[in-house]
C-alpha cells in the first residue's frame, strides 16, 4: 500500500502561521498520518495541549477517517458549530487532506505537517519513496528499480562519481540506486540493458498539473 509520508512542521513555523489567529479547530486523519504518528489521535491531543499552553483557544478537534476522501465534508458536518467558531483550521494531515478540506469547507486552513513523499512501506515502520510519477516510466530497462526517484540526481545512465561503498554521496544511510540496479540486472543476466545509452529523459509525459478524465464508456 502507498502512504503519504509527513513530518511535523517546525514549531516556529506553526507559530508564525497561527499569528493573530486565536481560535483554532484541529483536524487529524485516521489513515497515513495515524500510521506515521504525525496526525493521529495522540498527536492531535498533543497539539491541543501545545496550543493551549501558548494561549490559543482550541474550539474542538477531531480525527477524520480518511481526510482525502470526498466524504470528509459530511464527517466534519457534525462539528459545524466548533468549526464556525474557529479563526482557522489547523490540519494535521498530508497536503492531500489539507486541500480536500479547504475545497470542501471554504475555511482558512493551516497545514501543521510537511508532506514529504508518497512512500511504500518496505519493512515494518520503514517507508521509501520509490516512484515520483514522472509520466514516462523507464523501469522496464532498470530491473524494476526506479533511478528517476531513487538516484538523488535522477540519473539514468549509471552512477555518478559520488557513489561511495555503494551508498549515495548525500547520505551514507541511503543506497546508491545504481549499485542496486547493477546487482539486480546481474542477477537477472540482463546487464546489457545498463550498458545501453539512455538519451535525456522525456519530461513531457503529463505536463503539470496532471489531469485524467475517465473516457465515456
Amino acid at each position, binding site marked *: 500500500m502507498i502512504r503519504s509520508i509527513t513530518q511535523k512542521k517546525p514549531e516556529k513555523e506553526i507559530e508564525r502561521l497561527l499569528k493573530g489567529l486565536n481560535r483554532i479547530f484541529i483536524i487529524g486523519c485516521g489513515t497515513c498520518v495515524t500510521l506515521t504518528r504525525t496526525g493521529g489521535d495522540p498527536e492531535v491531543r498533543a497539539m491541543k495541549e501545545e496550543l493551549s499552553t501558548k494561549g490559543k483557544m482550541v474550539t474542538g478537534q477531531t480525527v477524520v477517517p480518511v481526510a482525502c476522501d470526498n466524504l470528509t465534508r459530511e464527517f466534519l458536518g457534525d462539528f459545524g458549530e466548533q468549526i464556525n467558531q474557529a479563526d482557522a483550521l489547523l490540519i494535521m494531515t498530508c497536503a492531500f487532506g489539507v486541500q480536500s478540506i479547504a475545497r470542501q469547507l471554504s475555511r482558512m486552513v493551516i497545514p501543521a505537517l510537511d508532506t514529504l513523499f508518497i512512500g511504500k512501506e518496505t519493512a515494518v515502520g520503514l517507508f521509501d519513496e520509490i516512484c515520483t510519477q514522472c509520466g514516462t516510466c523507464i523501469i522496464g530497462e532498470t530491473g524494476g528499480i526506479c533511478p528517476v526517484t531513487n538516484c*538523488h*540526481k*535522477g*540519473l*539514468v*545512465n*549509471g*552512477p*555518478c*562519481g*559520488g*557513489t*561511495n*561503498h*555503494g551508498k549515495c*554521496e*548525500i547520505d551514507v544511510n541511503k543506497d546508491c540506486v*545504481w*549499485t542496486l*540496479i*547493477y546487482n539486480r540486472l546481474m542477477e537477472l543476466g540482463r*546487464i546489457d540493458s*545498463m*550498458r545501453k*545509452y*539512455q*538519451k*535525456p*529523459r522525456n*519530461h513531457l509525459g503529463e505536463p503539470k498539473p496532471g489531469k485524467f478524465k475517465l473516457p465515456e464508456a
Partner: protein
Amino acid sequence: MPTKFKEALESGKFVVTSEVAPPKGTNLEKFKHHIELLKDKVDAMNVTDHQSSVMRYPSLGGAMMVKEMGGEVILQMTCRDRNRLALQADLLFASSRGIQNVLCLTGDSVMLGDHKEAKSVFDMDSSQLLKTVRTMETGKDLGGNELDGGVSFCAGAIVTPEADPLEPQLIKFEKKLEAGAEFIQTQAVYDLDKFKEFMDYARQFHVKILAGIILLTSAPMARFMNKNIAGVFVPQDLIDEMASAPKGQALAKGIEITGRMIKRIHEEKMCDGVHIMAIGKEEKVPDIMEAAGLI
C-alpha cells in the same frame, strides 16, 4: 581545426593539465595570477564550474579570461545548474569564442555546497552532455533543428578508477567513451599499482587518459579525503610519510610526494599524462612539475 590541447594529446608527449578556480566575487586578481603562472607551463588549464556546488564566478567567464590571457583552456561544465537549453546555449557561446575543450561532468549534489536549498537540475548527465556535444557538431541541436553555424570541441570526461563498487562505474565510463569522450581526467589516484590495474583495462579503448593528482598538504588532509571523498584512497604509508614531515614542512613533503608520483607515472608510461589539482595551492603547481622533472 584541432585545439592546441587536442594536438598535445595526439602528439604522444606526456600531457600536463592543471586547474584554476574562479573566485567568489569579481576580484579576479588572484585568479589571473594563477593563470599567468601556469599558462606557459601546462598544456591546458581546467576552469571549474561552481566546484563542490559552491557558487562562484562562472566557468565560462573564467575560461574566457584564460583565453584572453593566451592560455589553453578546458571548460568544465556540469549538469547540476542548467537544463539542456542552457547547456547547449553555453556550448554555442563557448565554441564561438574559441573555447573548444570541454570537460563534461554530471556535477555534485547541490546539498554539498553553499546554497543547499536550491533546486538542482540534472536534466542531463555527463554521458548525455558528451552526446549533446557530438550531436551539435553535426550541425543540429537536441531538438533536431539546424544550427546556423556549428560547433567543434575536444570533449572529455572523468572516471573514478577506485570507485566502490567499481563495475557500475566502469559501465558508465564505457558509456562516456561511446558518447564521444576523447580524453579522460581521472579522480585523484594515490595507489599507483592499483592505477596500473585500471590502465590495463582502460588501454583497450581509444581514449587519452590523464591521471588525476591532488596535492597532499598535510596528514589530516589525507585522512579527510579518505573519509569524505568518494573513490579517493590515500594509502597508509603516504599518510605516515606526510605525518613524518617536520613542523612547517608538510607542504614541501606533499610536493615531494606528488612530484615523485608523477615522475613514476611518466617514467613507466602508465598513461598519457597527468591532471594536477592543487586545490587552493595553485601557485605550487610549478614546484610540483619541477619535482617531477617536467620543467
